[in-house]
Structure formats: structure tokens, C-alpha cells
């Protein structure tokens, strides 16, 4: 694997045209890392301003299946099927279809250096965005698994850190999906909202799924980071955001919650209520929000009409 990573980086730096070659090297790494088989336990933390959260987790990937166990429960993945456990029962959610993955050309591979992590040979790789470091990965040479992932904000501080503290490559485990599920739901394609753009700050809207009721889930990705934008009725109750922090983007006020894996943002436009959830760094979120429907209120007449007729 050391050879492979070295080849990817060298081809990015010296053989191919800078941007295109670098993208291909990073894209190839990301695709191959998805299939890497390993078992590990680690910690993931996220910090945005004064808000931060952390959690521990265990992950096992083998035979095309993944199992992730955290304090809030367990998940299993196999292809498009995600199974979550609640009590003794398993619940399945299956994605019906999705668009092809593309990596944005704003990312490129930067310098790489050989290192040792968890007693293993590894390669430290910088992922650059427009000339500055956006992420630092320490990749296990044998398995291509990222032993350490750091994502940096615009100020150069660590926004999210995920570090494995125990690691076994290619574990001999026999994983099986549950034989039956209490519920098995499909995430079906739906009509894209006319209020949402096809892309925002380089994040392409790749898929739109219908929610129960009148809402939708628009999935945006730039290939490295991604977010879902849930658009629901304006009256939707954001009870979980009651303890969130307020922040402003271009004079508009939003509410955010920071969890270890994701950042959540809620706001209401004059027409709809929105929840954004994803792993993108704060400066990206602010740039994205400036291209989405803005927070705003309705006039008195519209509020009364809404109350009368729903």
C-alpha cells in the first residue's frame, strides 16, 4: 500500500497536470478507502466556536459490510442498506437510487510524508483547497484506512478530528446482516424543490428524496464533504434546536447544534422550514447558507391565513 499511496501522490505532483492529476489521486484514494477491511475503535470530536462535542466509536468493515457502534447505538451498512438497532429490534432504511460520485476540482493532494502511527507504517497526506490545507489524513499503508482525520476551518483550527486508538487490519470476522427487520423503509426519489438551487458554493445537489408528508431531503456533495438539506412545512417544530446556538451569516440569524459527527443548522424562510446536516466545515456552511433560501418572516395576513387554513 505504501507503494500505492506513493504512486498516487507522485502522479499527482509530477506526472499529470497539477489539478487534474491531484484530483484523480485523491479520488482514487477515497474510493479505495471505502472498501478497506479493518476493525478499530476511536474518538471523533467536532468544534465550532464555543460549541463542541465528542464521542467514542468502534467500527468493523469486512466482506462489503460495516458495523459501527457508538454510545447512541449501532449501525450496519451493506450496499444501499442501513440497519439500525433499537432495543432488540433492527430497523432498515434502503436508498433506492443515487447519482454518481464526483470529486470537486477545488481539492488536490498536497505534501505527503512517511510516518508511524499506532505502531504501523503510515503516510501523512495533506488535502489542499485553493492552496491551503483543508484536511490532514494519516493513512495506514497496508489497508488504506485513515487512522487520523483532521479537517481544518478557515482559521486553520481543527474543526473535526477522528482518530483511531485501536486498529486491526483485515480482521477475521464473520459479519451478517440481521435476518429480519421490524421495519424496512425505502428512501425514494422525489421532486426537487423549486426553492433550492442545483448547487451551492460548489456543492452539487445530486439527489432528492421524498419525506413522509410534504417535505424533501436534498443531498448535496462536493465529493469530500456532504450535507442533506431537509425542507419541510414552515410550522415544523424544531424542539431539539431550543438549546442551539445562534449565529449570523450576512445579517441573517440561524440556529446550530454541534454533534461529534455532524453540524446541524435550522432556520425558517418565509415559505418553508429548513434543517441542514452534514460534515462540511463552518466556512463552507456559511458560504452555502448565503446561496440557500434566507431566514425571514411572513406578514401578519399570511400568518393568520396560515393558521386558519393550515
Amino acid at each position, binding site marked *: 500500500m505504501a507503494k500505492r499511496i506513493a504512486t498516487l501522490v507522485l502522479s499527482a505532483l509530477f506526472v499529470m497536470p497539477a489539478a487534474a492529476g491531484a484530483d484523480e489521486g485523491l479520488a482514487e484514494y*477515497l*474510493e479505495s*478507502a*471505502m472498501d478497506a477491511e479493518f476493525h478499530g*475503535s476511536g*474518538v*471523533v*470530536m467536532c468544534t465550532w466556536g464555543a*460549541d*463542541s462535542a*465528542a*464521542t*467514542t*466509536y468502534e*467500527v468493523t468493515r469486512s466482506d462489503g459490510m460495516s458495523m*459501527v457502534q*457508538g*454510545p*447512541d447505538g*449501532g*449501525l450496519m451498512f451493506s450496499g444501499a442498506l*442501513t440497519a*439500525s438497532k433499537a432495543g432488540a429490534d433492527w430497523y432498515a432504511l434502503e*436508498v433506492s437510487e443515487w447519482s454518481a*460520485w464526483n*470529486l470537486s476540482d477545488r481539492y488536490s493532494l498536497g505534501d505527503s510524508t512517511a510516518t508511524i502511527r499506532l505502531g504501523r507504517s503510515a503516510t501523512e497526506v495533506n488535502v489542499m483547497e485553493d492552496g491551503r490545507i483543508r*484536511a490532514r489524513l494519516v493513512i495506514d499503508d497496508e489497508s488504506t484506512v485513515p487512522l487520523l*482525520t483532521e479537517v481544518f476551518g478557515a482559521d486553520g*483550527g*481543527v474543526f473535526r478530528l477522528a*482518530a483511531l*486508538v*485501536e486498529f486491526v487490519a483485515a480482521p477475521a470476522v464473520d459479519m451478517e446482516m440481521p435476518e429480519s427487520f421490524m421495519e424496512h423503509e425505502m*428512501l425514494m426519489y422525489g421532486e426537487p424543490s423549486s426553492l433550492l438551487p442545483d448547487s451551492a458554493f460548489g456543492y452539487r445537489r445530486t439527489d432528492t*428524496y421524498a419525506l413522509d408528508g410534504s*417535505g424533501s*431531503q436534498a443531498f448535496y456533495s462536493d465529493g*469530500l*464533504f456532504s450535507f*442533506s438539506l*431537509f425542507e*419541510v412545512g414552515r*410550522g*415544523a*417544530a*424544531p424542539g*431539539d434546536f431550543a438549546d442551539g446556538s445562534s449565529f449570523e451569516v450576512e445579517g441573517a440569524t440561524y440556529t446550530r*447544534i454541534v*454533534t*461529534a*459527527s*455532524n453540524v446541524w443548522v*435550522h432556520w425558517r424562510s418565509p415559505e418553508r422550514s429548513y434543517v441542514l*446536516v452534514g*460534515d462540511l466545515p463552518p466556512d463552507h456552511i456559511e458560504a452555502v447558507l448565503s446561496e440557500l433560501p434566507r431566514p425571514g418572516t411572513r406578514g401578519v395576513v399570511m400568518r*393568520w391565513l*396560515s*393558521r386558519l*387554513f*393550515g
Partner: protein
Amino acid sequence: MTHPIDLLSAFLDGELAAADQAEVANHLHGCASCAADLQGISRVRDWIRGMPVEEAPSPLLPALRPPRWAWAAASIAAAALAVGLVVTPAQTEVLDLDTLAGQHTARVVVSPGISSIRGPVAGR
């Protein structure tokens, strides 16, 4: 940094200052002992969360009864309803973040990306 045993609980809750949070995280990279302690704390919390909620003993209940003004307000509301003075608000759609998290994660894991290559954590 010495072993930050006393800080691990606050670290899990995200209650430390950003600098301390980062310092503890950096320490956890190289200290299997503290990482194990962190997982232990996390498991204990998980266990406590899973404990059944017992009903409060009856002597406590009078203290939880609504005050008189609440009964008065309820009476007025009932009367208002009876004469049709109250406009029913639009039906409220509840945002269940656990459900939304599940739907987001289900889509994340089918494509490469910074989260999917390390394995997204269950929950929000």
C-alpha cells in the same frame, strides 16, 4: 500533558474550552489508557440512559400538581373553545432529528467522502 482523567467526562459532553478540548483530543491519540477510560465512561452513560424510568412515589405527586391559575386558564380555554373563539393553529410537523440523521447517514455511506471512509457514527 498528564493523564486528563478528570476532564474526560466534560470532554465527552463538549463542555471544555476549545483549547482544552483539542489538548485532550491530542492526548487521546497517543494514550491508550485514557482512550480506554473514555470508552468506559461512554459505556456507563449508555447503560444509565437505558435504565427504566420509575414512577415517582405518591407523596411527591402533590408537589407536581398544576397550580390554581393553570386550572383557571384551562377553564377559560375550554369556555373559549365552546363558543368558537379559538382559531386552531396549523398542524405542527415535528422535526425528529434522529430520523433525519438516519436518512442523511443512509445516503452518506453509499458514496466516498471524508465521513464514509472512516465509518459514520450512529445517532446525530
